Every structure is written in C-alpha cells, then in structure tokens.
C-alpha cells in the first residue's frame, strides 16, 4: 500500500486526489491539507440547497460535491485530511460499514492520545473527546473497485466561516449553528492551548496507520496524476454534477453524533411558521420560532419558546405544553394552532 504524504494541495485537489486514486484502483493512505479553503457537499446533497453560494462566490471559496456520504462542510489548511483507499476485496475491508469506521478510527484516536487528547469513537462517524466534543468527523464511499474512508484532524477550526458557508432558511439561524458548533466541536488548539507542529502530527498519524496496514511505501504525486486531477476537477465542479437533483432535503445540520440543529417551516392558515431547534438526544436544547403569523399578546413568543426548551420531542408532551401556555397566558393566534407549531418543528405523529 502506498503513502502519499503530501503537504498542501490547491483546495479542491486535496479532495479530488482520493477520487482519482480510487478510480485508478490504487490502494493508499493520503495525508494532505487544502492550501486554500473550500466547501464540500455530500453526494446526496444539492449544493444550491445546502451551501450559501453567494457567500462562497464573494469569499472565493470553491464548492465541490464529493462521491462520499455525509453533509456539507468547510475545509481549510487547519485540517489534516487522512484518506484511506483500499480495494473492496482487501481482507481489511468489511461490508459491515460501521466496522470500517471503528477500525480505521483507531489510528486517529491513538494519534490524538499521543498528543495528550483522550478520544473515543462514537458510532456512526465521529471521534469525540472525553467531554463529548467532536474533534474528527468521517465519511466514506465506494468508488470504482475501492472503498474510501476520509476524515480530518482538526488543528483549529474557523467556526465563523463554516456557519457562513451553510445555507440557512433565515439569517438568524446562522447564529444558532455557530453557537452549537462552538459548544459541540473542539480542536487541538482548544484542547492543548496551541497547535503541535504539523510535521509531528503527520508523522505520528502515519506511524499509527502503519500499525494497521503494515509498512507503507512512500510515493510522490506525478505530473500525470496532477493532469488527471485537473480533468476530474472539471467534472466535480460542473453545474450538472454540483446541482444534480437529489432526493435529500434541507432539514438541518448535524453538529456531532446526537446533536443537530433542525429547521422546519410550515404554512398554517394564519401565516408561515419557521422553527430552528438544537436537539440533543431528542431533547430540545434551544428553540427559535419566527414567521409572519399573528400572536397576542405580541411579546409572548419568547415565553412559548422557554416553555418548549428542555422538553423531549414527544408529540403529546409538546402539544400539552403549548396548550398549557396558551391557557395560562391567554394567547390568541388566529389561524395558528398547536398542531401548526408541531408541524414546523417536525415533530412526527
């Protein structure tokens, strides 16, 4: 198995390279960082629905769709990507997908440990610190005859940029995503107070992966590979591929396993209701309701939000909490009933 210990590649190439190796059927470990920022969306995402394309254009952040699962993400030089490409007939590959995540996360966990950060693998695809904050997220997919598994060591993270890159139904939801990420994600810099030397991290990462794969053969990127990557870049950034209609709908942003910000919208008779909630294990941590419906007394919306905070997203419970609040505060909302709020909050029947 080869080792491509690369430094930094132009933004998209840092993600395109593993696509190229997989299509060529080359088994390798790639260690690389993007020289310039980029945004990447999962295969079942439409860039128009998930990414603020206007912001990206203004900020000169290219957007690409990858041939892997997962959601939209912002990538920059503060991440060291680890990309594993193995043939699907390699005995180390398992059709039990969760097994691959567990197995390939081990070198990452050991690398963090080497630098004094204790982490654990959390199914499906996260590596979390002891405090439960995400420090590495992973994605995978089958490309050609290969299985590809990728993730990134977070040296530091630009939370602001990530919250700006994501498309949100309403601007004020952006702040919710930012705050939720600040609380639920962490980086080497945050954990250690400083970022260890990049070369040192890469060297430990390679050493830990070699425990799993055996001795890796270091190789260089060839001019032919660069040429082929440039061809791939045209395909992956083409509007046909990038904006391909997909069945995935914008429903929220997964912050880490178990925590997500869910958006919802519902057109009630009395007007449009928008809801953004930070949900942790089905419990509402935060909720923000807005829209163009009418509510009397006018200032009671915050009270309704407070009444829903901390509650489990159980239909009967939330319904009774809303009704209780309406009775207590003598709330009137023409054309908007408890059921409409529940629909906007995507609380299933």
């Amino acid at each position, binding site marked *: 198995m080869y080792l491509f210990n690369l430094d930094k590649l132009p933004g998209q190439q840092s993600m395109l390279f593993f696509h190229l190796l997989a299509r060529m059927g080359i088994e390798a470990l790639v260690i690389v960082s993007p020289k310039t920022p980029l945004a990447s969306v*999962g*295969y*079942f995402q439409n860039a128009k629905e998930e990414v603020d394309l206007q912001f990206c254009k203004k900020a000169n952040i290219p957007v690409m769709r990858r*041939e*892997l*699962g*997962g959601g939209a993400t912002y990538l920059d030089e503060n991440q060291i990507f680890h990309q594993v490409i193995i043939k699907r007939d390699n*005995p180390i590959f*398992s*059709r*039990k*997908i*969760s*097994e*691959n*995540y*567990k*197995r390939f996360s081990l070198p990452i966990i050991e690398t963090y440990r080497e630098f004094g950060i204790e982490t654990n693998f959390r*199914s*499906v*695809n996260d590596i979390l610190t002891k405090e439960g904050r995400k420090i590495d997220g*992973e*994605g*995978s*997919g*089958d490309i050609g005859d290969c299985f590809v598994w990728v993730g990134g060591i977070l040296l530091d993270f630009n939370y602001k940029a990530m919250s700006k890159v994501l498309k949100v139904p309403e601007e004020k939801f952006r702040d919710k995503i930012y705050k939720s990420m600040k609380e639920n994600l962490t980086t080497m810099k945050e954990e250690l107070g400083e970022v260890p030397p990049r070369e040192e991290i890469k060297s430990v990462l390679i050493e830990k992966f070699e425990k799993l794969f055996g001795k890796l053969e270091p190789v260089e990127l060839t001019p032919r590979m660069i040429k082929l990557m440039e061809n791939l870049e045209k395909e992956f950034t083409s509007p046909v591929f990038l904006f391909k209609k*997909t*069945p*995935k709908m914008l429903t929220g942003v997964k912050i880490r396993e178990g925590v997500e910000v869910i958006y919802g919208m519902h057109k009630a008779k009395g007007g449009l209701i928008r809801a953004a909630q930070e949900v942790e294990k089905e419990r509402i941590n935060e909720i923000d309701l807005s829209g163009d419906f009418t509510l009397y007394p006018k200032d009671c919306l915050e009270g309704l939000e407070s009444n829903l905070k901390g509650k489990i997203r159980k239909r009967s419970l939330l319904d009774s909490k809303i009704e209780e609040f309406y009775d207590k505060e003598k709330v009137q909302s023409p054309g908007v009933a408890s059921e409409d709020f529940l629909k906007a909050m995507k609380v299933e029947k």
Partner: protein
Amino acid sequence: MSKIEDYDMPDELYYHKEHMWAKVEGDKVRVGLNDFSQKLAGEISYIEIPEEGDEVKQDDAVGSYETGKWLGKLYTPVSGEIVSTNEDVEDDPTLMNKDPYGEGWLFEVKMSDPTELDNLMKGEKAIEWLKGEIAKHPKEEK
C-alpha cells in the same frame, strides 16, 4: 427460502457478486439488494436508481445509496433497458431494509442478452458464495 445464518436467501433468485439479486420474469429481470448486504450496511437513508429508458450494462454501477455516512453503489446484474423503477423505495429507502426481496425492489431491466444469467449464481453455488462472504465480513470485529 434458504436461511444462511441470519440472512434470507430465496432459492428462486439469481445473485450477483455485488450482492444484488435478480428475479427473472420472462425477458424482464427485477433487481434488488440482498438481505446480507442491507443488514450489514444498516438503515438506508437515501437512494438513487437509474431512470426508465436507461440502457445499462451487466456489472455496471447504475445507482447509489447512503447509510451511516457511507455511499454505496448499486450494480445491474444484467444488460438491457430499464423498463420500470420502484418509486416507493425512492420515497422510503428503508423498504430495502424492511423487505429487501419484496417492497424493497429497485428496478426492472428488459434483458438484451439472457445468456448473461449464466454469469450469476443460483442455488447451491449462491449459498456457498454467501457463506464465504459471511466468513469474510464478520458481524463484529474478532
């Protein structure tokens, strides 16, 4: 219906090495993902299948599905024209988990070359192959 360990394997079906099943009905073949593969993959969240009228070639990847942040590929066991697709499974991909050989079917191909069925596995041969796959991909890390 055979049961190989925990996995259902209807006897009348043909099986492709990428874990697709094929049910022959005249010159048409109904295609889906087998029980073993759906169980190991986990709950399927999204799916993309070919469109009616598409020409497909045996062994080609013709669609995708996502489960647990993994993007898997769907292959066609025979060549021909896609004559119908399962809209229900597009709306609810978990049908592939709930009923892989029934409501979870994916698409139908009008075969252009029925001799290609010889390249697929059936009966004892398919059972032996699946046993090998089960041994290669244990449920939990040993």
